[in-house]
Structure formats: structure tokens, C-alpha cells
């Protein structure tokens, strides 16, 4: 079985208020070395298809069509085999 591990992240130039809040909290906890935190989404998806190239093409389309908002987000993924 093939599995896609997909990360959807805010573009570097887009403010991430959640990340900022987490950084502030970490500073309050004493982790003062933390400069920046960026929150992203991690999505796992399993496929009923063993053709890696085909799955990869499909994941690319899935990211474009639905998982990422092209205005604010970028995505990356890897396809792995799983028993």
C-alpha cells in the first residue's frame, strides 16, 4: 500500500498568528532561544494503488485542488510504501 505524507504550510511571507502565540508562550516558559514557530498541517493519505508515479501525480493534484490554498499556503509530500 502506498501512503502519502503531506505537509501544508503557510507561505514564508504570510503572518502566522498561531506560531507567534506559541513562540510567546515558549518564551514565557523559559525557552528563550526559540526565534520563530510556524504551525502547519500534516496529512496522511492511503492509496489503493501501487503505482508510485500515478499516486504521486494524484497527490500533486489533490494538493492543488483542495488541501492547500494557493493564496497563502505551500505544500510538500513524500510517498512511502507501507505493509
Amino acid at each position, binding site marked *: 500500500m502506498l501512503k502519502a505524507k503531506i505537509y501544508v504550510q503557510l507561505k514564508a511571507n*504570510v*503572518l502566522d*498568528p*498561531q506560531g507567534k502565540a506559541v513562540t510567546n508562550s515558549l518564551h514565557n516558559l523559559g525557552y528563550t532561544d526559540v526565534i520563530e514557530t510556524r504551525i502547519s498541517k500534516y496529512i496522511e493519505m492511503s492509496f489503493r494503488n501501487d503505482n508510485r508515479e500515478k499516486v504521486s501525480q494524484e497527490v500533486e493534484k489533490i494538493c492543488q485542488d483542495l488541501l492547500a*490554498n494557493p*493564496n*497563502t499556503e505551500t505544500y510538500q509530500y513524500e510517498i512511502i510504501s507501507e505493509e
Partner: protein
Amino acid sequence: MRISVVTFPGSNCDYDTYRVCKSRGHQTKLIWHKDSDLEKPDLVILPGGFSYGDYLRCGALARFSPIVHEVIAFARKGGLLVGICNGFQILTECGLLPGTLMMNENLHFICQHQYIRVETEASPFTQGIGKGKVMDIPIAHKEGNYYIDPEGLKQLIANDQILFRYCDKQGNINIASNPNGSLDNIAGICNKQRNILGMMPHPERSATETVPTKDGRWIFAAIENALE
């Protein structure tokens, strides 16, 4: 006029919107998202709420509802379309309006009275209200922080597409009068063809005798005049 208000699973301002339209004497229909007939409206409203539970991203899943194909076709033919709050989020996710509504800068759900300023009269949604008019129209959202890339913002300004900006009672537009971090205090925009409005404030919550502010009526009246 004939108004169709679309109900998605998770919409919660559909009935308020319906009631306001009815109270103004319009033939109003609630249209279920699985229907495929808009029933020949003059105006379509996508109401506020939490369509599909805001899963993945606010408004992202609503565009797969069957009725949305009809809504898009209606708008492409020049029909007047208004998205309020979650409706605005849906319009950006469908690609009918540019930009994105991101999480509020302070991460809070904000529910409050809010002043907004009319930035242009050149639209069926604002004509006759008066440029610079300050209106008190409530907001209630967690994802209303409007973002668009610098080139997109330039286009919005050049094409006079920004219809409303957040302001204070005197109409001042600054950081203090920006409730959610929206770029350039943007509260509502229209498309280039000027027949689609998206706005975060809720005009339907300030358009009846039972609520303290009634400024939302300006927007309904503008649309009525435009369609007369």
C-alpha cells in the same frame, strides 16, 4: 425581487437573512445545498455560519456542494451574489473573489459591534449610501483576517474593489480600528465586474427593529435600488 439564500450544512445565519429579506417584502427562498435549482433569483446570498464545520479551511468544502455550480454560473452571467462572513470565505475558496480570510491576528473569535466605512459608491451594494458613510454592523468570526499578496492588493485598489474598511466611530482607519488584523482594514470587497460582494460584517444582524443598530439596512436598500 426574488432572493435565494443558500443553506449549507453548518450555516447558521440563513434564517436571519431569510427573515430580513422577507421583512423587506421580497419573495425569498431558502435553498438547500444539495439542490440544483436556484429558482430564478435576482439576488443570491451565501449566509454566515460554519459550513462543513469549517473543516480543512473555512469555506473550502462548501464549493463541492451541488448548488455551488449553479451559484457560480449565476454570478458568471452577471447575477448579484452576496457572501456574508462564512459566505465571503466560500466565495474566496471558490475563486469568485480574490484573497483569503485567515485566522484573526489575536486568535480569538470576535463578536462585537463594529464600525465600517463605505469606500466607494461604485457598486450595486453601496450605491446611494454615500462614500465615507460610517455604519455600525456587527462582526462574529474567528477567520476574518483578510489577506492578499501585494500585487493583488494593488489590483484591488486600482480597480476600486474595496467596498468597506474597518474604522472607528469617526471613520478613522488605523490599527486601533482594525479588529482582526485584516490587511489595509479590509472588511468587504467586490469582484472586478462588481456583481459579487464578500463581507465579514453581518448586515442581516442589523436590519430589523428588534436590534439596536439598523445600519445593515443601507446595504439591502442599495441592492433593492440597483435591481429596480
